[in-house]
């Protein structure tokens, strides 16, 4: 296992980055309430997901077609969210 970890330092670095991001977002609860805290927590979640998708799920290595399929789910979700919010907010 030690050899495996030594040979895959790039994955270990990504894990360290992910844990750093996690503790950065968790540490915000120690600060007084502020408007920037919620967007910051969500931005950290987006950054963590991007790292997991690009490196752990190997999206970076795959061809354009796989990336299109991966992006499709997010696009449909965005359409669902925008249409739902448009209906809800204009009632």
């Amino acid at each position, binding site marked *: *296992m030690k050899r*495996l*970890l030594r040979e*895959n330092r790039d*994955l*270990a670095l*990504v*894990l360290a980055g*992910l*844990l750093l991001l*996690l*503790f950065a*977002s*968790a540490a*915000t*609860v120690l600060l007084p*309430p502020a408007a920037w*805290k*919620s967007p910051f*927590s*969500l931005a*950290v*979640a987006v950054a*963590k*997901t991007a790292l*997991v*998708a690009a*490196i*752990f*799920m*190997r999206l970076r290595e*795959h*061809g354009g*077609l*796989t990336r299109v*399929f*991966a992006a*499709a*789910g*997010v696009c*449909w*979700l965005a359409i*669902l*969210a925008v249409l*739902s*919010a448009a209906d*809800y907010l204009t009632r």
Partner: protein
Amino acid sequence: MSGIPMDRAAYEAEERAATNRLGMWTFLATEVMFFGGMFVAYVLYRSSYPDAFAVGSRTMELGCGTANTAVLLVSSFFMALGDRAARKGDRGALRGCLVLVALLGMAFLAIKGYEYASKVDEGLIPGRGFRYPGPPQLPLFMTLYFAMTGLHALHMILGVCAVAWLLWRSSPRRHQSVPVEPVAIVGLYWHFVDCIWIFLYPLFYLIGR
């Protein structure tokens, strides 16, 4: 024997693997939509009842949520490590990684079970038994909490079963070849379930504190 049939076999194997991966990504896109409806419901209700949802967030156990996020991130790391070991044909390293992934998955479920039990004790279960003092929309927050984390936990249970199957499939006594493609496919599923939790964590544990 000429080299051409071998090249064709390798080509067909690579084509099959690419098709499998694309099929898994398509399935994951449907899963995004599956969870997406609940995420949208959460955002709309949160914007309608921000105070009740802030009270709800403060009833969550931050230590459990943070520990569970760390557990899942580490499990994803070992799954990625196992994927690389499988591609190199290193059966021992692959099986070691899979054991760690399964144990971390079970640790996540144990922490989640502890959290659910504490919610029962505090009277935070939506329905007649709800007795926690707070705004009238607090049960709505708890309903979304149990629905979304419960669905995620169900995916985790399926993930642990899939990893257990990979352990059986990679046993040297049963199969001569290392299961490269099944590890990649189950790995995609595992990482996706991790990504869902990455968003559940700030929505339920951080926002509003």
